[in-house]
C-alpha cells in the first residue's frame, strides 16, 4: 500500500518534471534555424522558388517549426540545379546538406586551362619543327634539282626514306632506337636515354624537312624553263640564275603549300604523345585517367586542334587565291 502511494508520487513527480521541463525549456530553444550546406559551396539558393540574396553555406533564422520549405540550389555555369529538397522545419536547429550535380561540360571547363597550356606546347613544337623543316627542306629541295649526282642521291634517299616510313616509326627509331647507339659510341654500352622533347623535336624536324624539300623542289620545277634559259643567255651562272631568278619566283609559289605543311605537322605532332612528350594529346590522356571522362575530353581536344588549324587553313586559301590572280 505504502509502496503503491510512493510509486504514484514518483510517477506524478516525473510527469510534473517532464511537463515543466518542456514548458521551462521552451524559451531556451526558442529560435528555430535551418543551416543549408552544399557541395560545392557558394551556390544560389531558391527557397520555394524565390531566389535568396545569399549563398551557401547559410543559416536561415526566424522559421516557424513545422513550416514546409522546398529548396533548390544552383551554381551556374558548371553545375546543374539540384534536385528539389523538401524540408519540414523542426523546432530547434535544422541542418540540410544538398549535393549539386555537375554539368556534362564541367570537366571540359575544369581542365581547359591545362589543355590550352598543352596546346601551347603542341604549337611550340610544331613551329620549331616546321622552322627547322624549312631550313633542312630548302637545302634538300635545291640539292634534288642541281646538276650534281651525289647531292641528288643523298637528298633523294633522305626524302624517300622519310616520306616512305610512318612518322610513328621515325619517332620510335629516334627515341628508342638511338640511345643504345649513343651508348655504344660513348663506349659504355649503356643506353643513353633521350629527353622526350629532344626526340620529338628531332623526329618532327627531320620528317618536316623531307616534305618541305618536296614542296621546294616542286616550286623550283614549276618555274618555266624559259626563265632559266633567259637568265643563262644573259651570261648568269647556274647559281646566279637560281638565286636571282628562279628561287625568288619559286619561294613565292611555295608559301601556300608550306602553310599546308604547317597544318599537317600541327596535327601529326600528336604522335609524339606515345613517347611521353607532354603535348595536347598526352595531357588529355593523363586527364582522362584521373576523371574517366573520355568523351568530353576528346571532343575538347578535337575542338582545340580545330581552332588552331582553322585560321591557317583560311590563310592558305586566301594566299592561294591571291597567288592565282597575280600569276
Amino acid at each position, binding site marked *: 500500500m505504502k509502496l503503491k502511494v510512493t510509486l504514484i508520487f514518483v510517477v506524478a513527480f516525473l510527469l510534473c518534471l517532464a511537463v515543466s521541463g518542456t514548458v521551462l525549456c521552451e524559451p531556451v530553444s526558442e529560435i528555430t534555424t535551418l543551416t543549408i550546406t552544399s557541395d560545392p559551396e557558394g551556390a544560389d539558393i531558391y527557397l520555394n522558388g524565390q531566389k535568396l540574396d545569399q549563398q551557401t553555406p547559410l543559416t536561415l533564422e526566424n522559421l516557424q517549426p513545422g513550416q514546409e520549405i522546398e529548396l533548390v540550389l544552383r551554381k551556374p555555369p558548371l553545375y546543374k540545379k539540384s534536385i528539389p529538397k523538401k524540408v519540414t522545419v523542426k523546432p530547434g536547429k535544422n541542418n540540410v546538406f544538398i549535393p549539386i550535380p555537375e554539368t556534362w561540360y564541367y570537366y571540359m571547363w575544369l581542365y581547359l586551362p591545362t589543355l590550352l597550356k598543352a596546346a601551347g606546347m603542341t604549337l611550340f613544337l610544331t613551329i620549331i619543327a616546321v622552322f627547322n623543316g624549312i631550313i633542312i627542306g630548302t637545302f634538300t629541295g635545291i640539292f634534288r634539282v642541281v646538276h650534281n649526282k651525289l647531292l641528288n642521291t643523298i637528298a633523294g634517299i633522305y626524302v624517300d626514306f622519310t616520306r616512305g616510313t610512318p612518322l610513328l616509326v621515325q619517332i620510335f627509331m629516334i627515341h628508342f632506337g638511338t640511345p643504345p647507339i649513343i651508348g655504344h659510341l660513348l663506349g659504355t654500352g649503356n643506353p643513353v636515354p633521350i629527353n622526350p622533347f629532344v626526340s620529338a623535336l628531332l623526329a618532327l624536324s627531320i620528317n618536316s624537312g623531307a616534305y618541305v624539300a618536296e614542296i621546294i623542289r616542286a616550286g623550283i620545277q614549276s618555274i618555266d624553263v624559259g626563265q632559266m634559259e*633567259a637568265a643563262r643567255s644573259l651570261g*648568269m651562272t647556274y647559281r646566279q640564275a637560281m638565286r636571282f631568278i628562279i628561287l625568288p619566283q619559286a619561294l613565292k609559289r611555295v608559301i601556300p603549300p608550306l602553310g599546308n605543311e604547317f597544318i599537317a605537322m600541327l596535327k601529326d605532332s600528336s604522335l609524339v604523345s606515345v613517347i611521353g612528350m607532354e603535348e595536347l594529346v598526352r595531357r588529355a590522356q593523363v586527364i582522362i585517367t584521373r576523371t574517366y571522362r573520355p568523351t568530353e575530353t576528346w571532343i575538347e581536344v578535337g575542338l582545340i586542334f580545330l581552332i588552331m588549324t582553322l585560321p591557317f587553313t583560311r590563310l592558305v586559301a586566301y594566299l592561294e587565291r591571291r597567288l592565282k590572280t*597575280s600569276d
Partner: protein
Amino acid sequence: MIKVVNLHKRYRHLHVLKGISTEIQQGEVVCIIGPSGSGKSTFLRCINLLEKPSEGHIYIENIDVTDHSRINVNEVRAEVGMVFQRFNLFPHLTALENITIAPVKVRGLSTEEAQDRAYKLLERVGLRHKADAYPEQLSGGQQQRIAIARALAMKPKALLFDEPTSALDPEMIQEVLDVMKDLAHEGMTMVVVTHEMGFAREVAKRVLFMDDGQILEEGTPQAIFSTPKNERTKQFLSKIL
C-alpha cells in the same frame, strides 16, 4: 664574226642538225626561214650554247666556243644576246630591273651605271615611261621590246632572235620589228629565225633556208624570194608568200 663548221645535234635517236656550216659577218643581218621542226631554233640555241652541240665547231671572233676545256660558257653567253619567242621576262622584277640585273650581277656594273644604261635602252625601244611596270602589266609587244633592251644591256657582240614576233598579236608585231630594224641599221650583228618574210626581205643581208636539219639554200633575200633554186625552197615559199 660567227663561224659554224659542220654542226650536228642529236637527241638520243633524233638527229636534229645534220651538218650546218655558215659564217656570219660583223654587222650582218641573217634571217633563217624554214618549216617547223627544221632545226632553226636548235641551230640558234647552239650558237649561244643553250644547247650543247653534239659535233662540230662554233667560232665566235675566232674562239672555238665548243672547246669546253678552254671556254667559260657563261662568258660566251654574255657576249651573244638572245631574244625568245615567249619573251621570258623575269615576272618578279620591274622592266628596269629586268634590264639591270644581268649587267650588275654578271658584268659587275654599279646599280647607277646599269640604270643609266637601262634608261637609255628603254628610251631606244620607246618604253621609258614603263620603267617601273612589271611584265604582267605590259602588252606582248612591250614585253618583247623590254626583252630586246634586256639583251642589249649586256652590250652583246651579236643578237639572236628566236621567232621574236610569233607569240604576238598581229597589231603588236610592227612595233617589235621597228625596233629590230633600227638595230639592224645601227650595225648590230643579228641572226633572226622568223616567219616575217617582209622583214627578211627588207632588212636581211642574207637569208638561210633550212629544212630537215640542213641549210638547203642561202643567198640574198632577192635571190631566195624571187628566184629560189632548190625545189624544197620553192615549195615552202609558194605556201607562205
